[in-house]
């Protein structure tokens, strides 16, 4: 096991800069998830750690070695690919054992490691089949098994669940987490799915346009998003945003509803008159109206009953907000809705920089 550190890591293809001066320290045994929309540089970063992509600038360290110029096979890493990259003409056993064979591990040792990995992943009965005879989930497990038998310093996962259906994805996600708990190996995991990131990670790295937007535990990125981008990316349904201005010690929304600035957690914000904010409210942080000052009202547009709760979409000025309500609350479309806010759960972002104000 080893720590991984990226220092001023940079990647360009010609004039196109994909990864921009990324600094990241990953502790020994940590599960770090790189997440972001497509084109944010997360896969490229992972592939630079793997050695599958050359490094334009900066350095990658695994343990105490700078690995910039080492080929993948000398980095002591194992990788699970998005398309699994199983050798189609080899049996599962040969797929699992290939790296051991290449590295000259003895037959009995190799057989023992293959059996251990196969038992751990529940694929022992598939060892003599070829990848073509396996289901998607089984192939995914074989790909993980191939990484496990190596006993590498670091596991790299490149969107390993994106080819699975939703139900299987949840199941395998749990297995990956168990695997990490059992092995304790450092894991760098790339995904575009924020739910995967939240459920798996010790720490989440949110990337956007080749830059790190925020690094933090799942709690931190959920409760203290550093920017509108992070706020909108983490959480489902997504955070609501509405413009508001300060006036007379209040935050005033476009429709005239207002909140007392003093009630907010971010009470210390400079409240110069007319300063413009973007207010972020998570759907789950609306509360039934309490005739307090922190009430909003708007016209209900769509109601989505989910069983466990109800999603209510309503208009506030020109913004549409979504509230997650208890299941018994069933307002009708077109109705006027008054809904309460928990002022301590409100996020304020600067309208110009889009960064959070704490």
């Amino acid at each position, binding site marked *: 096991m080893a720590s991984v550190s990226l220092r001023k890591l940079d990647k360009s293809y010609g004039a196109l800069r994909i990864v921009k001066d990324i600094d990241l320290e990953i502790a020994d045994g940590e599960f770090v998830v790189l997440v972001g929309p497509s084109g944010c540089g997360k896969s490229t970063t992972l592939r630079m750690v793997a050695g599958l992509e050359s490094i334009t600038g900066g350095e990658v360290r695994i343990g105490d070695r700078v690995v910039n110029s080492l080929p993948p*096979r000398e980095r002591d890493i194992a990788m699970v690919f998005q398309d699994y990259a199983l050798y189609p003409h080899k049996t599962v056993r040969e797929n699992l054992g290939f790296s051991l064979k*290449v590295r000259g591990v003895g037959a009995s040792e190799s057989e023992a490691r293959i059996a251990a990995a196969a038992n751990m992943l529940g694929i022992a009965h598939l060892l003599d089949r070829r990848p073509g005879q396996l289901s998607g989930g089984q192939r995914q497990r074989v790909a993980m098994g191939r990484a496990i038998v190596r006993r590498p310093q670091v596991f790299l996962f490149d969107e390993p669940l994106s080819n699975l259906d939703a139900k299987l994805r949840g199941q395998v996600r749990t297995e990956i987490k168990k695997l990490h708990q059992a092995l304790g190996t450092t894991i760098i995991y790339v995904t575009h799915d924020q739910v995967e990131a939240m459920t798996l990670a010790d720490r989440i790295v949110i990337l956007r346009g080749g830059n790190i937007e925020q690094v933090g535990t799942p709690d931190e990125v959920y409760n203290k998003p550093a920017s509108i981008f992070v706020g909108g990316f983490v959480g489902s349904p997504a955070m609501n945003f509405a413009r508001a201005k300060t006036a007379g010690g209040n935050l005033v929304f476009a429709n005239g509803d207002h909140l007392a600035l003093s009630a907010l957690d971010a009470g210390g914000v400079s409240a110069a008159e007319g300063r413009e904010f973007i207010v972020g409210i998570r759907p789950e942080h609306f509360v039934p109206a309490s005739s307090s000052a922190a009430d909003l009202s708007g016209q209900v547009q769509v109601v989505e009953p989910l069983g466990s709760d109800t999603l209510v979409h309503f208009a506030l000025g020109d913004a549409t907000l979504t509230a997650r309500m208890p299941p018994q609350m069933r307002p009708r479309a077109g109705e006027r809705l008054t809904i309460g806010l928990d002022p301590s759960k409100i996020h304020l972002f600067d309208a110009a920089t889009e960064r959070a104000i704490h």
Partner: protein
Amino acid sequence: MTTTSILKATDAQEQRPAAWTRWLDLGDRPLALLLLAPATVLLALIIVYPVCRLAYTSFFNLSLTSGMPAEFVGLDNYRLMFDDPVFWETTWNTVLITLITVPGALVVGLALALMANLPFRTQWPVRLSLLIPWALPLSFAGLIFAWFFHSEYGIVNDVLIRLGFEGIIWFNSPGWAFAAICLTIIWKTSSFMALIILAGLQTIPRSLYEAADVDGAGRLRQFFEITLPLLKPSIVVALIFRTITALQTFDIPYMMTGGGPGTSTSTLAMYIHQNTVSFLDLGYGSALAVVMFALSMCVTTVYLRMIRTKE
């Protein structure tokens, strides 16, 4: 949609089938046979009938130069063939050409395909240079190489002399003439092999090589453990086509040596051509052709069986 309107729509659909479509409701099997019929008839006319007719003719003494009517002679033509040293020599030449040029073209073609698959910035010159030898007519290639190997004006001897060797009179010795023919055939056919193998190469996902990189396999190991096994289907297909055409080798030796010196570079196809077209001995020529057909069928069967066991 209300219930009534759904019913109406169904009614309309049920009434619609016109008389002309009703005869198509034959059931799957008759319909399949019907659709296969045109191709079957065509194949029967241009392949099955000529082959049967060929076999039939081979039992007759039918020589247009003798002025005699065709006479049924049973297996006489075949008996004659077994005692004919030229038949054995040309058959052996054909087999030898196949044994040399098919593996030769496979190795050269594989190398060309691997080169063409390198990440060139502009792909088309590479692809074009692969296509040109393939697109060239066989007899044309034969003519060009006859000049290349010309003892006085040929570029091959020119290079040999410049390198300090003696020039070779290629077409005077059976061995050198045979070598020149084989080299020409390999040049001409390796691009076809390369094209088929290149298509196979491009279906191998890049991630397999990346996985092998991470697993620790070097380039050579990747070639033998990944590239070659995954190319097997393409290679078998290329081999089938190439072997069948190699057994029918005609144009290149015909243009380069005319089968000489003597009959030392003559192939079975050339001997068939000589008997039927030059000597107008259709009976004997047909018997020879039947043997060549049988030879091709045997090889094809072996290859097809190889593919089937693979599956």
